[in-house]
């Protein structure tokens, strides 16, 4: 059916665009929604032992890799990175490792705390955000066989099967609905905004710097806290600018909406602070005001994951670009007795 096909295609494309933790998070959300006992494995306290998740009581293991797209100039480099990453995961699962070029048994102490006692993995599922080359199949299957020969197989059956999937295979496996697409799109937006924010250099920060210097004087003994706060405010400010840039580059009509939202945020925050006897208490709620306005203007199905950070960023921008500020109280002129 055409509609179903297009949703699957779009989801596969979206998955392919995600990388790093965003890809892993989406994968977990996706599989959790279709596999009852899908269990993701947190990396704390000492790593995930090469296992990102398991299901079916521990019979099925999942390892995933969201390669950062910009890191590879050629597909060959991407193939090598995927093989290297998954070989590492397989070594952890099979408890083997290379020592002076020789494959040896290497205990994976954390695995005991992850899998149900006595359970061995029977199927290993390797999922990557890119699977456009068959050249990763041979090396990984060969590696698995090699590791199984050396391994004591405490946590994996010697005959465990191996399956490698990419975005298309994952999108095709279970039904794709609008909620799935919406969630994945939000991750794309969040990932792009974060990436853009990292590249933005804040210009003309003299007045912002002056405010932070004044703050240090106003709250003596809190220099370290003010310094940390400066970094957080600037990060939030960059996020607001990144969101603006993302909209301006890809959705100019939404950029115009953002401009109008900003005007309303400024008006509301100004009224709140100027009209209050406790202005700084009110400042604490300014983010909520921004969030309320932005949530009303931007579809939460598409932007929900970034709205909170952008809201905080918009208030930080008001402070950074100067409409909202503070000053030391005026010193009283000295009087002669």
């Amino acid at each position, binding site marked *: 059916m055409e509609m179903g096909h297009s949703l699957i295609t779009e989801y596969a494309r979206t998955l392919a665009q995600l990388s790093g933790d965003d890809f892993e998070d989406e994968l977990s959300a996706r599989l959790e929604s279709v596999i009852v006992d899908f269990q993701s494995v947190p990396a704390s306290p000492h790593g995930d032992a090469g296992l990102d998740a398991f299901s079916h009581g521990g019979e099925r293991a999942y390892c995933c890799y969201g390669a950062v797209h910009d890191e590879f100039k050629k597909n060959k480099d991407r193939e090598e990175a995927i093989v290297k990453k998954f070989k590492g995961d397989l070594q952890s699962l099979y408890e083997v490792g290379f020592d002076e070029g020789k494959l040896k048994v290497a205990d994976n102490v954390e695995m005991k705390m992850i899998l149900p006692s006595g359970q061995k993995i029977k199927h290993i599922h390797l999922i990557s955000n890119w699977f456009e080359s068959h050249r990763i199949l041979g090396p990984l299957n060969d590696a698995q066989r090699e590791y199984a020969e050396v391994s004591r197989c405490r946590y994996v059956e010697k005959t465990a099967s191996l399956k490698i999937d990419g975005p298309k295979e994952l999108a095709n496996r279970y039904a794709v609905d609008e909620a799935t697409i919406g969630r994945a799109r939000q991750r794309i937006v*969040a990932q792009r905004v974060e990436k853009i924010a990292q590249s933005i250099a804040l210009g003309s920060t003299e007045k912002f710097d002056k405010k932070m210097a004044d703050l240090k004087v106003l709250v003596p003994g809190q220099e370290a806290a003010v310094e940390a706060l400066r970094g957080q405010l600037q990060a939030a400010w960059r996020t607001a600018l990144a969101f603006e840039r993302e909209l301006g580059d890809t959705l100019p009509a939404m950029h115009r909406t953002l401009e109008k939202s900003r005007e309303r945020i400024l008006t509301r925050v100004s009224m709140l602070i100027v009209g209050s006897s406790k202005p700084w208490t009110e400042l604490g709620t300014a*983010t909520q005001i921004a969030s309320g306005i932005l949530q009303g203007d931007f579809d939460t199905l598409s932007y929900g994951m970034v709205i909170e950070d952008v809201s905080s960023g918009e208030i930080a921008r008001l402070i950074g670009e*100067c409409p909202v500020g503070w000053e030391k109280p005026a010193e009283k002129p000295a009087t002669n007795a």
Partner: protein
Amino acid sequence: MPKLGQPIEKLAGLLEGSTATPVMVPSRLAPSAIYDVEYRTAVIALLFERFAKPFGIAGHRRISAAKLKLLQFVTFRPWLLPAIREWSKGPDQGSLELTYSMRIRRGFLSDTAHEDVIDLLAACGIFVRAKNHLVTGERAGELAKIAASVQEKKLFDSELQLISKLEEIPLTNGMLEGW
């Protein structure tokens, strides 16, 4: 996306315990320049001067409307230049490149602010729409004056530098499709 924490709440907490007095100067927040008609007109004038080709025997000049739209879109967004350069070279990495170029295409095609300015310039007799092109109108000399004035007064230096770089990038029909 890493959570940024609650810097505003922390700031409010610090200020609450201080003697700081609030200062509000809403006028200090400048609206985005991309909605400034004069700025947009100046950029269009510079681009038209640089990229329009002679047309017909009456001394007219013309430019593809799609090409002008893409050129001005990038001029206002210099950070897109590397992406445009890559897009022009063709898809080296298959679907990934396609996805990126699709985003830029969607962006410039939906840039209605540009269309509004072109409508205004057409209404003023500066441009005449001729199918897929913009041709100089009876008052096109005004546009040339704006371009000359910008260069004479050494305004918009970064935009002029970007326009020079754009001259080196072939804009293919594939990039301008969708019209």
